[in-house]
């Protein structure tokens, strides 16, 4: 059975070359980057090289990049760390309703600790409403957090605009951007976006799981979540995972070389996908925007997402019902976008990677047609 993996926003297959680079770092350059001896220095040089590779892509300084164990840790560090450092000055936090669980989670936690959290509604375009966002920001706002690309539907948020209007209202507000679903797919410059912190993850771009990074603009002060070591200026203490960092650096360098070609491929695949939808009775697309062609959120009203996901998986076809981190609950993103319940419960997210082909999509539609024919319609 041919395996077709169309769930690349959940994770990607690790590139064999990248895995080889990580393996090399594990078995040859295995030193502790903090050790004084040469073996340590060699490991540190690899770590610095990886940091530079990421900094180059973001157009920032290498010392502004901190390795984390993934996107979730980066988001937590940004939000909890900023709150801890600045809570005497300001306690008001703003985010969109459709943010990822790793942003909403820490915000909820802080809400329970006494912070004021404002979650602004989403537009049908799948990102927070700029007017609502601007209205929510005041003198006492500490932080705005917003995903650059929404993980479920692919809405591209005008972060630059959010940052500009927010900073005009309160010069000290911090802008955090969760760029996990955008990094490596669309060009990102931290200066152009005007953000103070930006979260990244490696396993969405063919690096292994367990590595991410947080960009923190020089001069922005946040507190660590863990204590007990001077690594990474004490902000992310603990021995750095050199092999995973090397893999992350190599992965982003590789994918950035082809970023334009890949994007054109996504656009072509998206066009093909939309044409297929036209001929598929009942299937609808949840976000028509073309800005992030690699995420296609669809719904097949009358069928339950979970049943469809299982049916497809039995035939070697992998897609998701929503964000993998939501673990099968009703999508809060689609709910916030105001979609009807039957659309929400029948949602399927199809997401491409650089290796996705038209044949993959073709096969997806064939299998989905079988599903529609075989599965009993739910009485939703």
């Amino acid at each position: 059975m041919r395996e077709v993996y169309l769930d690349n926003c959940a994770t990607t297959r690790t590139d064999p070359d990248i895995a080889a680079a990580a393996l090399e770092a594990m078995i040859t350059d295995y030193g502790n980057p903090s050790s004084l001896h040469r073996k340590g220095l060699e490991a540190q040089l690899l770590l610095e090289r990886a940091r530079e590779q990421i900094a180059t892509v973001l157009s920032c300084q290498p010392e502004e990049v901190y390795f984390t164990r993934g996107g979730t840790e980066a988001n937590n560090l940004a939000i909890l760390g900023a709150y801890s450092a600045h809570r005497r000055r300001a306690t008001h936090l703003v985010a969109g309703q459709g943010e990822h669980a790793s942003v909403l989670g820490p915000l909820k936690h802080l809400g329970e600790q006494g912070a004021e959290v404002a979650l602004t509604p989403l537009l049908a375009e799948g990102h927070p409403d700029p007017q609502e966002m601007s209205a929510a920001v005041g003198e006492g706002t500490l932080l705005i957090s917003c995903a650059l690309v929404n993980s479920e539907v692919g809405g591209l948020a005008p972060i630059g605009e959010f940052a500009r209007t927010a900073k005009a209202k309160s010069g000290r507000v911090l802008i955090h951007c969760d760029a996990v679903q955008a990094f490596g797919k669309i060009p990102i410059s931290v200066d152009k976006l005007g953000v103070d912190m930006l979260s990244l993850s490696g396993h969405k771009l063919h690096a292994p799981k367990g590595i991410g990074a947080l960009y923190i603009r020089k001069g922005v002060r946040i507190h660590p979540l863990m204590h007990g070591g001077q690594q990474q200026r004490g902000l992310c203490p603990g021995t750095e995972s050199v092999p995973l960092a090397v893999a992350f650096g190599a992965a982003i360098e590789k994918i950035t070389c082809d970023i334009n070609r890949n994007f054109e491929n996504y656009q072509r695949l998206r066009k093909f996908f939309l044409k297929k939808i036209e001929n598929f009775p009942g299937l609808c697309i949840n976000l028509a925007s073309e800005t992030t062609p690699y995420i296609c959120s669809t719904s097949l009203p009358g069928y339950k997402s979970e049943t469809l996901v299982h049916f497809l998986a039995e035939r070697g076809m992998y897609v998701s019902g929503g964000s993998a981190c939501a673990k099968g609950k009703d999508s809060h993103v689609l709910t916030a976008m105001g979609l009807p319940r039957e659309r929400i419960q029948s949602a399927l997210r199809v997401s491409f990677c650089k290796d996705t082909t038209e044949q993959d999509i073709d096969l997806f539609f064939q299998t989905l047609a079988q599903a529609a024919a075989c599965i009993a319609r739910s009485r939703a």
Partner: protein
Amino acid sequence: MKEVILLKSGEIALKGLNRSSFEDKMISNCRRALGDLGKFSFTKAQSTTYVSWQGDIEVDKAVERLSRVFGIAALCKACVVPKDYSAIEEAAAAYLADELQAARTFKVLAKRADKKFPMNSPQICIELGGFLLERFPHLKVDVENPEVLVTVEVRDFAAYIHGRQLPGAGGIPVGSSGRGMLLLSGGIDSPVAGVMMAKRGLELSAAHFFSPPYTSERALHKVKQLSRKMTPYCGEIRLHVVPFTEISEAIRESCPQEYATIIMRRYMMQIAELLAHRTGCAALITGESVGQVASQTMASLQCTGARLTLPVMRPVIGMDKEEIIRIARRVDTFELSVQPYDDCCTVFTPKRPKINPELGAVERAEEKLDRETLIQSALDGTQLESVRSDTVF
């Protein structure tokens, strides 16, 4: 809207007949600083240089890089409009919208270099000021201390509009004063000294004295990183790594301990001078500051510099540590400098160094050393590395 960057030259503008060679140097340094950001062209007009480009570039990044090029007194982004008053009006409101929206007060400054333009400077100020007041009713005019200075320059080919001007790095272009040999230890002071002399137009070579196993490879790596941190200001640095273990050990073997540091520094200066002669440097540069440590008292400085023929430039000689640190932070070398690795100056530090050494006594103290051989062997083992902003270690 077409955008350019304006570079205002400060001191260079006063250079008389040599001015254009200074400007050319500055432009070539700018080109190097902008490097991979895109394709740029430079046009000189009076005391301003216009930087333009094709296609989409990261303008703020370009401004940031240019703000570290010596020879530029001030710089700003500007938009280019045809020389037509109504176009100027609309462009000013649109181009500076964000700045004006956030400000409370403003002032219009007009410069009409092209006297054929139908309105004179005061007329432009009055008209444009009135227009902006209508467009941004929250603004007030403040001619003394405006938050935003809206500047309109009507020049030969176009009009330029800009708002806030950023301070440039000042000084004169690197390369317009020859080359100097910096003694680079890895501490806070020497990188600052190097950048300060680069500000006066010196290209830099550097000498680092490396004493394994007393100093680690990390210390050497740190020096390379420091050199790279300096390159946005200084351009390429030619770094000489001089093996110094043999000399340190010989001094420890056969010289009185209290003179060890002073003798070590005399050797460093001599080797640096020989390297300077070889590589066309006209001066030595050090980060010494009077009285900071025992080897930097007036008497010690006299001893370390006694046998030299080249001038020794000590730009931080009269500065307090705090003042030096302030510059180190601005240049962004501070955090690297304070990484805790043993450097060449702390190897074999005597417990009670001589604070007021006398030259005769120092010379007697180092008598037993075979100077020629030691120095020759250090020079033979010296490795040269070229450090640029994109050098990967």
